[in-house]
């Protein structure tokens, strides 16, 4: 019945009949139109808009190279290290596939960080795109899990001790922590059991979740439509006859061509790294990981891979004397909230929460709070859509306070990232503590400074030269 009602496909030359046959049994034309040829994206996308499609492209690289790596890799503590060396030295093109995969991991984070920063610049997380942002954050979480599980697989010294440190973070959770850590490892120390299960997570469990979330992220994007560098809705100005946004252009062919150009430029940079500097000076592949895992000897200096170092710095910055700074911060925040909120119940809740936190700061170990702060430093991004109370979306129309705040946040992020790669000294710990304070103030004070800021009016339509 339905088959007869659909119109025949035209414009595909010799394939018209085949496509008509398919379209009458599967929503082919409808899907193509909804997501590509009639998905209208703002015409003023700039450089920052490359990184979403590039992240998708890197995901494809990771999946393809990953499949071929599993053909020779052995998830066994006795054989894993040697099997990676076997891939590097004896499997034809094995070195190339592995370097693509290891370089791809770092480039995945570069693309995702720039993609997230774009959203922060142009307010792409704001209403009605909150869920789109949350799906994106969940993708970021999966990506971090994927990177962490994957890093254990070569079974080098850094793999081993990195996993040891991160799994021990769970050990800090009061009451259930020690048993939870044993459950995660499947043993009392990181061992063969841990390697085997991390392999299962890395090659099947997390990638499945990741792919499902990517689909959800794209569906949510196509439901609400893309934001743009001006942060104004293109749906507000539509052609009265066709109902299409006046400032929108079809994703295909306009942005498929633009993104293809981006992929080519990306591949130039990517290939330079893969062929000439796959270790990237120890930032993409750490020297210590070329030594087989030794459970009895920690390497003299251990540091996570660069994409985790900002959070790692926050973890290390939380020492006993930093608890006083945290306590002062909590008191100040509670005061600020109680002063701004008029609702009595909310005031009581905030005061109670502050008291509980203060009691916790001085009864539980600083280590527990380090783990909490590290977790919070990633989780806090989830709340951006509600923390940002600015009347405008885009940085182009925001005022000097927001611009300064974002600049300070970026500096803090880089400083923390750098410190996370370095050994601890007193001065560096102090610098990391200042960085941590700036990092959190950026988020926690946002509801106030984004309201206070002197913003310029947004234009009615997107600007475009």
């Amino acid at each position: 019945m339905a088959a007869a009602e659909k119109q025949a496909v035209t414009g595909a030359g010799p394939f018209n009949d085949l496509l008509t046959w398919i379209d009458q049994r599967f929503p082919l034309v409808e899907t193509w139109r909804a997501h590509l040829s009639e998905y209208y994206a703002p015409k003023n996308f700039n450089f920052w808009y490359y990184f979403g499609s590039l992240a998708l492209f890197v995901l494809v690289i990771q999946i393809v190279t990953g499949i071929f790596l599993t053909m020779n890799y052995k998830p066994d503590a006795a054989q894993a290290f040697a099997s990676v060396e076997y891939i590097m030295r004896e499997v034809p093109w094995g070195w190339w596939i592995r370097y693509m995969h290891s370089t791809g991991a770092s480039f995945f984070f570069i693309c995702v960080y720039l993609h997230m920063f774009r959203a922060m610049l142009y307010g792409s997380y704001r209403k009605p795109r909150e869920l789109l942002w949350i799906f994106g954050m969940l993708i970021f979480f999966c990506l971090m899990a994927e990177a962490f599980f994957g890093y254990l697989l070569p079974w080098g010294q850094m793999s081993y001790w990195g996993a040891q440190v991160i799994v021990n973070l769970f050990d800090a959770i009061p009451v259930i922590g020690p048993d939870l850590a044993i459950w995660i490892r499947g043993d009392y120390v990181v061992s063969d059991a841990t390697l085997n299960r991390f392999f299962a997570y890395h090659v099947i469990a997390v990638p499945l979740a990741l792919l499902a979330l990517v689909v959800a992220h794209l569906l949510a994007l196509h439901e609400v439509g893309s934001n743009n560098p001006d942060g104004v809705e293109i749906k507000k100005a539509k052609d009265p006859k066709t109902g299409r946004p006046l400032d929108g252009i079809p994703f295909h062919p306009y942005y498929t061509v633009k993104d293809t150009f981006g992929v080519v430029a990306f591949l130039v940079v990517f290939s330079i790294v893969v062929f000439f500097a796959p270790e990237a000076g120890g930032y993409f592949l750490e020297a210590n990981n070329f030594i087989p895992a030794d459970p009895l000897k920690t390497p003299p200096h251990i540091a996570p891979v660069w994409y985790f170092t900002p959070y790692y710095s926050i973890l290390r910055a939380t020492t006993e004397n930093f608890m006083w700074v945290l306590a002062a911060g909590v008191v100040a925040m509670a005061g600020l909230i109680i002063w701004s909120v008029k609702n009595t119940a909310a005031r009581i809740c905030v005061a109670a929460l502050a008291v509980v936190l203060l009691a916790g700061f001085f009864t539980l170990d600083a280590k527990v709070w380090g783990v909490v702060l590290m977790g919070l430093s990633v989780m806090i991004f989830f709340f951006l859509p509600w923390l940002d109370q600015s009347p405008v979306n885009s940085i182009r129309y925001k005022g000097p306070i927001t611009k300064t705040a974002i600049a300070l946040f970026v500096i803090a992020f880089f400083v923390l990232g750098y410190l996370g790669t370095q050994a601890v000294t007193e001065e560096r710990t102090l610098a990391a503590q200042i960085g941590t304070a700036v990092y959190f103030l950026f988020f926690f004070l946002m509801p106030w400074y984004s309201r206070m800021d002197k913003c310029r009016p947004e234009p009615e339509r997107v600007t475009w030269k």
Partner: protein
Amino acid sequence: MSDPSKPNRARRNLLIASACAGGAAAVGTAVPFAASMLPSERAEALGAPVEADVSPLAPGEKMTVEWRGQPVWILRRTKEMLEGIKKADGKVADPRSERKKGELTPEYARNEFRSIKPEYLVVVGICTHLGCSPQDRLKAGPEAFESDWTGGFYCPCHGSLFDLAGRVYRNKPAPDNLRVPPYTYLSDTRILIGEDKKGA
């Protein structure tokens, strides 16, 4: 018979009941999966005690034996080292090993030197912060991390310091002293690690 515009209460209740039963079954099914991730019988069996012969140790030397996949250090301390421990009393967070007594320090090691015999220190060489293995900085003398260093261990991961009795310095990321495993002397030079006289 029944009004088609209103939900059939009996059917709706049956639906709710079967949904609850199905949900309970789904949760129940998750239990074996979660339990399969616990340490296997074999992993548990590998926790057997190990024996160490300390006769080759000269004063001031340290050896490492593996117990439950963890490094256990045995350090033969000199008189000067023991003096250094006394000097560090004021700098360490828990000089008398009073925190988490049962878990970290067996009763027979709950003294200033945290050992049965002051001469031999037996500790698990895993930092109580996040599980790195600290490095030897046994000699007293100024160090980059502590000008008045009396000898001990330095954790490269997050900078925690321990004295030669495995006691953690104050204001460092590690919350607790290094763990003293259960151990007992089989003879003057043979130590059994993982089991003490009570047979724990």
